[in-house]
């Protein structure tokens, strides 16, 4: 996907910030649409296809987290949260709710562009097709070729990052994958110290897959080391 065709929706109620991001991303070759409220963002998302969403948390009307959750009901696009809130709890709350990444104000334009590109790269990441393109564990089925996941025949919607993480774990069934390896592999080297991201995404995966009790031990935490996928 070339930058020219990549569509990004930017949501912030501060018009100065909105104008800044729009200009920078346009210079970088992205097609940018802006919205000032959560409601407007949802309407845009329902009307058009986007490849990435940059979302402020403090919005008039429905706030950023609520907007994010709503969008997740029908879209798996990568979402970058942009906010002046700095405490860790807010960051984790946003990541757990739906987001893929988090950029804190004030930010440099280069930092923002780098985060946007990393998120897009993750969402477009395709690993070499494995010899076995399908992993089955209990009632879980992972189809690596068409990137579909089902539990007891019911499709589970995963974001690209969630799918990449699950696929990486499943293809190394029975092996412990270290935190650093997974962060490098899924998020990129610039995220190698962001252990929180890994924990939050594993939790999100578990929450989505743990509809059935037998899946509970499928992604095993090896304390202080990493995670291991166990075929049941």
């Amino acid at each position, binding site marked *: 996907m070339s930058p020219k065709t990549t569509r990004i929706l930017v949501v912030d*109620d*501060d018009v*100065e*910030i909105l*104008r*800044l*991001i729009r*200009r*920078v991303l346009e*210079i970088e070759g992205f097609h940018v649409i802006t919205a000032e*409220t959560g409601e407007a963002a949802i309407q845009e998302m329902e009307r058009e296809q986007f490849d990435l969403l940059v979302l402020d948390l*403090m*919005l*008039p*009307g429905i706030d950023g987290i609520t907007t994010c959750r709503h969008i997740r009901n029908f879209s798996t696009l990568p979402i970058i949260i942009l906010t*002046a*809130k*700095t*405490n860790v709890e807010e960051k984790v709350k946003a990541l757990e709710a739906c987001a893929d990444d988090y950029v*804190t*104000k*004030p*930010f*440099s*334009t*280069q930092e*923002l562009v780098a985060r946007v590109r990393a998120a897009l790269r993750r969402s477009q990441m395709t690993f070499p097709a494995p010899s076995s393109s399908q992993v089955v564990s209990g009632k879980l089925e992972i189809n690596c070729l068409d990137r579909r996941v089902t539990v007891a025949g019911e499709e589970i919607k995963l974001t690209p990052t969630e799918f990449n993480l699950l696929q990486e774990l499943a293809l190394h069934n029975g092996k412990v994958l270290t935190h650093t390896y997974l962060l490098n592999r899924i998020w990129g080297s610039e995220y190698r110290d962001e252990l929180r991201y890994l924990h939050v995404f594993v939790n999100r995966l578990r929450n989505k897959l743990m509809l059935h009790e037998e899946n509970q031990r499928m992604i095993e935490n090896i304390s202080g080391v990493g995670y291991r996928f166990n075929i049941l």
Partner: protein
Amino acid sequence: MKRYLILLLCLSLLCVSLFSLAVSADDSVSSIPMKVGLYENSPKIFTDEEGNAAGFWPPVIDYIASKEGWEIEYVHGTWIECLTRLENGQIDIMPDVAYTEERAALYDFSEETVYVSWSRVYARKGVNIESILDLEGKNVAVLRGSVNVEGPEGIKKLVSAFQVNCIFIELDSYTKVFETVDSGEADAAVVSKDFGNLHEADFDVAKTAILFQPASLYFAFPKGSSSTLIERVDYRVKELKEDTSSIYYQSLERWLGVSPAGRTVIPPWVKWALLGVIVVAFGFAVMSFFHRSRVMSKSKELIAETAERKKYEELNKLKSDLLSMVSHELRTPLATIKGYATMLVDYDEKLTSDEKIQSLVSIDKATSRLTYLVDQLLDMSRADAGLLELEMDPANPAALIRQAVAEARLRAPDCSFEVDVPAEGLPPVRMDVTRIRQVLDNLLENAIKYAANGKAVTVSARLHDGDVVFSVTDRGPGIPEHELERIFDRMYRIEPQAGVSAKGLGLGLSICKALVEAHKGRIWAESRPGEGSRFIFTLPLGDQENSRNVAKDNQNPRR
């Protein structure tokens, strides 16, 4: 004449003599002599140290005698002698006689029971007697002729029923019975329980568990006595028993330890023990009181400490919230500054000149916003410390309003403004012009934010009751009633409304309040949801010369 006097004297003497004779004759009629048998069985009946009749029975007998006009003569003797005299008619009344059929054949009995008693076996100390069977082969001292010896339920019948063989030593009084045991001549004694209770400590005897022969005690009379005598005795005994304050109950209580209600009178040692218990209980109560006081005091301390801690935690949370909010609010203009600055550096070649200028304008506006926020924080800090200094000078309110509105028009070109001041003008008011402009600008800023769709914002001033009353009115969504009271609180921000975000530190109105009150004025808000809001503040016209000092004094250091 002399003879008449002598005759009169003789007649007088005769009258006195006849009257004396009559009185003497009457006395002899009411004092009926009555011989009463008396034997030694204390405390029921006995002869005291002065030779008088004492014990439970004599006061009862004396009472009946006083009522019936008897003259009592006690005839002393042993129990057997008394019974013999009664049988022979040598005494008229014998008290303390238990009824048996054998005795009924020999004597007449009153119908009213006077007292109920029973008998007990005592053993010499060291002699083990726990039941009737233990009397086997023992020498038992008894009162000769007593019902507890010869009666149908007496000791003789009792041992016979258990086929126990013992030797009875019959004596004339209970005192001798105990003395015989005490001296070792007898192993056991049979006495009435009242005698035993009173005298057991005086002899080397001990109670056994053998209690027997419950007996109702009556007055007994010689066989064939006048029924009137017996009826009168019964009548008086009944009368005595019906009155709980009578001599009968007093005598029962005094000699036999029985209260009028039939309850055993508490012995002195019990009273002392009770007193001790009360003293100890009082001691415990006092200790408990002090302990309770200490607990209460400690509880109060804990409650105060908890309240203090809660207050501290609230303050801490407030401080944390304030820091979080300040951080967030400062970061927003900083984001604009850093964002545009880095864009100018990173994309210099790709930006047009207009874009670069626009970026610098944005940086400038964000810098102003940042300065405004820092000023707000400083004002809050000064108000807290009581350091808000006012430069008081006379100023024209109408001119101040027009100036503020003119600048607001530049900031919000889409918004329409109306100025409403009296045509004749307003008198000058002493004020710190910069600070009152700060108040007006803040109120105008809020009004512009909420004056949706370019609806007019009205700023007015008028004279009222010695004050100049300023107001800023918008036609926005209004403020819910429950929020009206709190909007001047520090860090309080109205719930975000459609199209309007809750941005800012939430300090603007609280600083306005501090500034207006520093001028001795008042500030408040009125609103109807859906129709808009009006913020009103007053500045006093009076005492203009001193207003500077007053303004300083009026600052609340804890605001």
